[in-house]
């Protein structure tokens, strides 16, 4: 690698000395990556051709009057190239571009976030990078189709034209929780990501109380749901608080099968409340029944 860099530097310095009056190699201005082509030469004696580009450096021996042929595997990294044909004390110089193949071969698809609450407008972003078979970014505009298929069967679709090899869309999260398949598609090439759409904050918490064993009161919530009707995931903490004559008892209980249940000391006249995060539920004044 270091040798290539040194060779590139040496060739660039050589170029600086070459006069514009010297005959030029007739390379095509643009060459598609992975295509075969040939270049005629006009040297009178044996010569050497050097080609330097991004990630590539080639050396070819050229016989007088011979065409220089390049195969499909010779030049495949897109970018600006420099060719120098040296024969004795004379040199010929050419510059040309290798462009990405016109056929997209793969998509790198970034979908963010991988998890978000339901019903968020433009909450999901998808960015697709279009590459050819050699891993070159396909710079010409392409029409990329994005589709967000929800777990319930519904789908959102949007198309985006790529600019400089990148296509970008924003999607809304669905109102129903579940794992959505987020797909970017261009011709026969596609990439899929999973976006987990999770319930939002509890919309309301309703709690009931009934006497338990041994001077305890059993507290239980109704199934806790968000404002779109999705059941709040198990493990979500519901905080129960009982206040009685200046004493406070609290317990943080995770939802289990959609409900939270616990026991606190049964004190007649105690005020009992429930909350989850910043959402407050109902209050109960315990009267022993």
């Amino acid at each position, binding site marked *: 690698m270091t040798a290539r860099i040194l060779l590139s530097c040496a060739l660039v310095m050589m170029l600086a000395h070459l006069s514009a009056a010297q005959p030029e190699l007739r390379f095509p201005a643009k060459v598609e990556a992975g295509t075969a082509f040939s270049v005629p030469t006009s040297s009178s004696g044996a010569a050497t051709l050097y080609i330097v580009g991004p990630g590539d450096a080639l050396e070819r021996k050229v016989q007088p009057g011979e065409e220089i042929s390049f195969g499909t595997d010779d030049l495949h990294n897109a970018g600006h190239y420099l060719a120098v044909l040296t024969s004795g004390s004379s040199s010929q110089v050419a510059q040309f571009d290798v462009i990405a193949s016109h056929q997209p071969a793969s998509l*790198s*698809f*970034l*979908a*963010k*976030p*991988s*998890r978000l609450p339901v019903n968020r407008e433009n909450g999901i972003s998808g960015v697709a*990078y279009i590459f050819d078979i050699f891993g070159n970014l396909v710079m010409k505009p392409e029409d990329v189709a994005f589709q967000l298929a929800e777990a319930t069967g519904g789908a959102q679709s949007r198309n985006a034209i790529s600019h400089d090899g990148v296509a970008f869309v924003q999607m809304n999260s669905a109102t129903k929780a579940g794992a959505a398949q987020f797909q970017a598609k261009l011709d026969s090439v596609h*990439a899929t*990501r999973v976006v987990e759409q*999770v*319930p939002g*904050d*509890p919309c309301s918490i309703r709690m009931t109380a009934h006497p338990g064993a041994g001077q305890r009161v059993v507290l239980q919530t109704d199934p806790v749901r968000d404002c779109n009707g999705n059941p*709040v*995931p*198990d*493990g*979500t*903490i*519901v905080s129960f608080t009982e206040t009685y004559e*200046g*004493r*406070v*008892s*609290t*317990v*943080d*209980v*995770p939802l*289990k099968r959609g409900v939270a249940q*616990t*026991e*606190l*000391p049964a004190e007649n006249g105690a005020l009992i409340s429930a909350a*989850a*995060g*910043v959402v407050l539920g109902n209050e109960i004044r315990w009267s022993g029944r």
Partner: protein
Amino acid sequence: MSADFLNTDPRNNDPRNNDPRDQDPRDVYSENADPGNAGRKYKGVVFGLILLVATLALVAVGTLWPNQEDSGVAEPNAKFIISASSPQDAVNNVLQQIARREWDSAYELLGNKSEFSETEFKSDLMGEYGSLRSYAMLNQFDLQPLHATADQAVVRAHLLWSSVVGTFEDSRDLRVVKNGRRWEVNWPIVKEVRVPPQVIPVNYLRWDVIYRGPEDDWGAQDVEAPHVRIVAMHPVDRAGEVILMGELLNEDVVPAFVTVKAALLDHNGAALGTEDAFDKISHVLLPKQVTPFRIDFHNVRMSQVDSVRMQPSSNLVPASADPVIGIESQKLNPLPDASLTGQLVNQSGQVVNVAHVIATFYDGGGQIVWVADQYPSRALLPGTPVPFQISLPADISNKAKTFRVVSTTYISSRIQ
């Protein structure tokens, strides 16, 4: 040597008897041959005798009336046990043995050995189930005589234990009884509660995480870090240092390991100090759970601070929704011993080795005025209340109107 110091016959000491003609010719080189030299010798012996008598007298005084100072430093290397001739001596002896973890020696010094076994005595002091006591050392103790008669006394012992999370105090009122000429301590045993053998079904949720692997495409998404939010923050200037207090909410549906880092900035935007909430925070937050946090900046004054930069961070971690800990009978106690007391009740089936209680105190307007914590020294057994007490500074106790308490648990089987 002819000088006979045991000769008490006055005639032998009569100067008139010092007739040179009575002198034995063989004593020509004896001290008596030089009256001045013999006098010096006599004075030296008397001085030696005085020193001997004084030393013996001091030893006797020290033994009969030993130092009765009412505090002590537990000295693991101390070997000497003075005779328990006073209630304080007796208590001191027992506590010194406890400090050295010489359980059998301490137990032997007790007067009520018949009431409990040495194992129960050891469990009382060291705890069981890998609690904080199991790894604590008695570092210091203070003795306070409460009551004394000729044959019994009550001494309050304030025990200061050192542990990996700081010190904790234990106070015992020890009844000391005179047994013959010796005082003996009746240890107020606190027997560890035993949970009867049983099966407690537990089916709480557990989260496991599969992270992105090195072989995945760079575009493949990783699991999203939990979304957390600071819902309250209040800086205070206290004793010449800045203290940041606040609350952090896990607003996601997955558990989070959270930390809060803060930087104090001066008028030029330069950092005056950067700290994080090390142990004044509950690091693992379940969905919709809120933790208080407190960050202390030593050596920074509020007058220097222009702005504060807060950096809450979260990581998705495997976690379990159990155990559930009830925090019951929480009560704010007024001055002079301002504190928040309550008791922890383990509502799950697994033994909690070490619990951590963090309390947030609010003023009448709902503003956070203090965050404090405590590690109860005993393990939490299923359904067994364990008391806790969080001390409050006097000035804070006047402001604190409401409070909120959370607990964190450490279970040794989950620490790999």
